[in-house]
């Protein structure tokens, strides 16, 4: 089965990203395919390279990065939501004349069309949010 995942909330503030991560991990372990994980609304904040959460608890961004690397996941951050909230990759930062970029490795910024496509191409789309 092919799954697509939509995550609407940022790390730590809500459990959404954690639940989505556990679901995604379980699905992959069962041999299912994850077509795309799409981060929308505050969900884009899962992609920051700059978070320094306490060492004695999980690092949500790094968990996603590790899973992405292991399974070649397509982690997509919505460009409109990202711009609103100040998540930029190197190209966007240059384009917009900002003095820094902050997207973590393994995440890519793209348009909302990727979410629609994720729904069309997958067998099931699950939404995690608040």
């Amino acid at each position, binding site marked *: 089965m092919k799954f697509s995942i939509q995550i*609407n909330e940022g790390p730590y503030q809500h459990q959404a990203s954690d639940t989505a991560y556990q679901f995604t991990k379980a699905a992959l372990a069962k041999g299912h395919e994850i077509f795309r994980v799409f981060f929308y609304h505050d969900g884009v904040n899962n992609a920051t390279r700059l978070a320094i959460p306490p060492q004695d608890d999980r690092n949500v961004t790094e968990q996603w990065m590790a899973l992405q690397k292991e399974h070649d996941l397509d982690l997509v951050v919505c460009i*409109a939501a990202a711009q609103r909230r100040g998540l930029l990759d190197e190209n966007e930062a240059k384009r917009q004349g900002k003095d820094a970029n902050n997207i973590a490795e393994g995440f890519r910024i793209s348009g*909302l069309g990727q*979410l*629609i496509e994720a*729904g*069309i191409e997958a067998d099931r789309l699950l939404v995690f*949010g608040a």
Partner: protein
Amino acid sequence: MAEVKKFMYLNRKAPYGTIYALESLEVVLIGAAFDQDVSLAFIGDGVYQLTKGQNTAGIGMKSFSPVYMALGDYEVNKIYVEKESLEERGLTLDDLQHLVWEDEDEDYAEKDSIRLVSRAELADVLNEQDITLSF
């Protein structure tokens, strides 16, 4: 992408207090280009998104209310509003914007986009969907 899927946008939150109403509308507009079978459902506080006379000057935010009026031009014309949600909130159809679309198959006749449905009817509509986007 030959298969057309039934996409349902589930709106249950009021506008302006949070960003969900605005950003879900942005998905609808982009999604319109994919020629899928699109429906919107406004349930619970979601019905507040459609009220007339939203004047946001005082709160310093841009009103996105006019965008609902443009949905017809994007061929998004199946807009379900739950009757019970309106009644629970002391609202009637008259309190909502009059959303229309032009049916090119009937000489561009103007038709209502809002379908006022009961909870039971809406349950049937929801049960037919392939993909539900919640915000």
